[in-house]
């Protein structure tokens, strides 16, 4: 919808072409996101909604479903797991991606090989990589066998005295306990039943997810590195700056927008993660690897409790928005000239 006054200063146009060009996207996203979320919220506030019988009567009290949700051991464990998973996964994937990108960009003949190798895992479906890593982390027939045959196990035993037999995601341990701290900080925190720490069983899962997605982070950083003007590198060389100094003071700071984008995208992936976990470890012993995505899936389609699943989704969305959006707003303001 270009107007006849295109080319003249924007201030004279009554309709901003930028807004017009942006409008269709916004309208579509508005429908597919906000309208659908509103529908979901409506379901979460009903007593017994079902797809074939769309009964929107309110339960008593009206927030009853949400109360059930937060006092539920499983959902508490899910919240803990998603926080632990997201933080550790992001750190691992982004740092690995950055390192790989820098190293790969400095290679000459092997650059294409390495770039493709590290990106390949991203192409495979999560369902299957979940199974593969479940096999690999099997405490009896998996990588523990390799540790044994390579002599690492016996070396460990000599050094530390106890045998090296990692349980990986079959481990029921939770490292750390923040329950007492949290019960003072969060309202209703004393009804926390799940132990708020780092479930050891999550670590192999985080590793598998990072393995699959660090290639994508690497790809983003490679694009970012490619955008650094040549002049900057030449100037650094002329000044006889060391490689380390160059990366630390120039290259990495200029990659920060890319890092933020990668973080936001990987966060959205990690919050919705389902297939990888479901195939790799299921809900885990004592819900040590359960995720909100699995909880929603089972609440709605196994327990047939649609309001509960909807409530869990709404809670996840609110929590995520509360954490991510302020950073995005601040970042957006920061990049304005």
């Amino acid at each position, binding site marked *: 919808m*270009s107007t006849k006054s*295109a*080319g003249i200063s924007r201030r004279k146009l009554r309709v*901003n072409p930028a*807004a017009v*060009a*942006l409008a269709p*996207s916004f309208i*579509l*996203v508005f429908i*597919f996101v*906000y309208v*659908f*979320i509103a*529908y*979901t919220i409506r379901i979460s506030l009903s007593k017994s909604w079902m797809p074939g019988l769309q009964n929107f009567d309110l339960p008593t009290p009206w927030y009853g479903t949400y109360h059930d949700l937060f006092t539920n051991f499983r959902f508490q464990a899910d919240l803990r797991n998603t926080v632990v998973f997201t933080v550790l996964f992001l750190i691992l994937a982004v740092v690995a991606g950055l390192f*790989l990108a*820098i*190293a*790969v960009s*400095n*290679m*000459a*003949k092997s*650059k294409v090989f390495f770039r*493709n*190798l590290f*990106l390949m*895992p*991203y192409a*495979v*479906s999560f*369902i*299957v990589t979940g*199974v593969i890593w479940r096999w*690999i982390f099997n405490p009896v027939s998996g990588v523990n066998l390799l540790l044994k045959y390579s002599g690492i196990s016996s070396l460990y035993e000599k050094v530390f005295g106890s045998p090296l037999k990692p349980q990986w995601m079959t481990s029921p341990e939770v490292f750390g306990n923040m329950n007492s701290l949290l019960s003072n900080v969060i309202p209703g925190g004393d009804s926390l039943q799940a132990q708020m720490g780092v479930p050891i069983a999550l670590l192999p899962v985080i590793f598998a997810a990072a*393995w699959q997605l660090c290639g994508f982070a690497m*790809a983003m950083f490679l*694009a970012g*590195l*490619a*955008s650094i*003007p040549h002049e900057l590198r030449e100037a*650094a060389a002329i000044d006889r*700056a060391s*490689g380390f100094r*160059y*990366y630390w003071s120039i290259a990495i700071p200029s990659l920060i927008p890319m890092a*933020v984008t990668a973080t*936001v*995208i990987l966060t*959205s992936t990690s*919050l919705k993660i389902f297939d990888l976990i479901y195939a790799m470890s299921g809900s885990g012993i004592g819900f040590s690897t359960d995720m*909100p*995505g699995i909880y929603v899936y089972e609440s709605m389609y196994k327990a047939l409790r649609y309001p509960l699943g909807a409530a869990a989704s*709404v809670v996840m969305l609110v929590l995520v*928005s509360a954490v991510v*959006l302020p950073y995005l707003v601040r970042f957006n303001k920061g*990049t*304005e000239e």
Partner: protein
Amino acid sequence: MTGQVQSFVGSGKTSRRVQFALLCLFIPLFLIPFYVVLSASFKSSAGADVTTMWKLPTEWTSSGISAAWKALKGNFANSLLMTIPAVVISSLIGSLNGFILSKYKFKFSNLLFTLMLVGMFIPYQTILIPMVRFLQYIHLYGTIPGLALVHIVYGIPITSLMFRNFYVSIPKAIVEAASIDGAGLIKTFVRIILPLSLPGFVVAGLFQFTNIWNDFLFGIVAIPNPTMQPVTAALNNLSGTQTVDWNVLMAGSLIAALPTALIYLTLGRYYIQGLTAGSVK
């Protein structure tokens, strides 16, 4: 171009040797899982199991591969028909949005953008039912264009974010020069910005193709007819409720991943360095 070492800073001989050595340490980490998948693909149904994962097939057979191909081949066309248009359109829209949001800001544009980003975080399980009813309303339920539309819409926030942050590094001077020369928004976008966007399209294309090709949930819900579903639905159905032929599933996963892998190999060639550098005049 790809053989050229990017710079001479941090790429002194020893420094590069160290980096190369470290990269080589990563090789087994990335290859081992693929070894497991590949060796399982060539085993017989009973031979492919968690207990034999490290061993090469005792009897090499292609039964897994042929069974997987038979099950998957009918759905490849569906996946291609859905994915390619969705990737292209969502990337183009994302680049236009990114351009506007970084160079043509107006009042509330940042707010609109932030609100749009919420779309990235929505858990898909819950919006399935309103999504299906909406698709019915616009008469696209059960069709591949309907599925493509869903992917396009949910891809817009991400591609817009990618391109917006990519375009931040393009100096405003270029855009201003164009408007002084009389070019409007669309002309500036098409003539000047798009040619500079190749690395952005590479990353967006990579992400979108992988996401959309590997999607399973929307595929089975938006299209109830199994013959029209994407290949991920057929891959999922290779595992029965009760028992799984691992060799077939592994072979199937490799076959299903081939197009994506091909895209990576093709797009990788377009990581052209220093594209934006030297464009400042």
